[in-house]
């Protein structure tokens, strides 16, 4: 079944004579032994015949002289600066390649920003940490967050009643945050 799917996907190329000799042979052999795929081939041939009748046989010939006159008139006509700019803009921004270029640039820029924020040195990264629980055993404690890197700081104040762990140590007042 999987082969039939691949064969049918390649039928267009086979009918148009665009496949390599070896691939064409694979398909020819398959069509000889697979009625459904051969039926598909017949349908495609009928479709192609109808398309050719519609699109090729019935288009009129156009006279060259009037056609060339129209082209020449365009070539010799002086265009205003406004028309020049519009034509440039239309050709630049309507180009098929640009349709992929613009989103590709956006994706690349987003990637650069994302990578940049991911790879910034420790102090620049988002260093967010969540304090799930804290027991300072009777001491005052402050939870701070440094703005730039979002680093969490747990600050323990000395016990004001003097029962602090550091009795005897010469301490300065706590810094203001």
């Amino acid at each position, binding site marked *: 079944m999987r082969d039939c799917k691949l064969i049918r996907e390649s039928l267009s190329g086979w009918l148009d004579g665009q496949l390599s000799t070896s691939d064409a042979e694979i398909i020819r052999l398959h069509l000889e032994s697979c009625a459904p795929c051969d039926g598909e081939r017949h349908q495609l041939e009928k479709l192609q015949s109808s398309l050719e009748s519609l699109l090729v046989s019935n288009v009129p010939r156009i006279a060259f002289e009037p*056609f060339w006159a129209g082209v020449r008139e365009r070539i010799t006509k002086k265009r205003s600066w406004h028309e020049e700019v519009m034509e440039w803009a239309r050709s630049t921004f309507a180009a098929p390649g640009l349709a992929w270029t613009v989103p590709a640039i956006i994706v690349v820029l987003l990637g650069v920003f994302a990578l940049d924020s991911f790879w910034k040195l420790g102090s620049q990264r988002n260093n967010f940490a969540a304090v799930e629980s804290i027991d300072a055993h009777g001491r005052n404690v402050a939870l701070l967050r440094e703005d730039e890197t979002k680093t969490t700081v747990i600050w323990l104040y000395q016990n004001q009643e003097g029962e602090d762990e550091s009795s005897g140590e010469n301490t300065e007042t706590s810094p203001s945050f």
Partner: protein
Amino acid sequence: MESSDWELVQRCQAGEIGAFQELVLRYHQKIYVVIVGLLRNREDALEVAQETFFRAYRKIKSFQGGSSFYTWLYRIAVNMAIDAQRRQKRNPLDFRETMDGLFEEQNEVARDPFSDVHDRELREKLVASINDLTPEHKAVIILRTVEGLSYKDIGEILGCSEGTVMSRLHYARKKLQEKLSAFL
């Protein structure tokens, strides 16, 4: 001895408008047929075809000969036709009427292969189904059916790989088959 396309291009790049006229003579009918297949209207197709050659003249100095002249020209034509198609605001039914007018105008009735009712219905359905394709899928159908271009040339014209051309053709034909299954 007839000059090659590249010789004419080089003469044109040197400022010889007669060389460009020769190129227009060679390709104007082919370009017109492709564009009329993509657009719905003969007048629009004529206009776009003339614009195509005008644009080609303006850009001729940038043509380096990396691809063949005709694939380069077709690329301009297809892009302009697709742009024009997107700007069109006509009702899809107009396409059928325009194409009918096209046939009658040329007195092709006697040679019209769609003379009986069944064939006429097939033609109408085919026209409507082609219209429902995206511009890119319509382009591959037209270029392959009308011009018989190779996948390589079509890929160069549309700026995609041969594999993409085959895949688009497969998709477009499959869509047309589905819509025309009662007739095929």
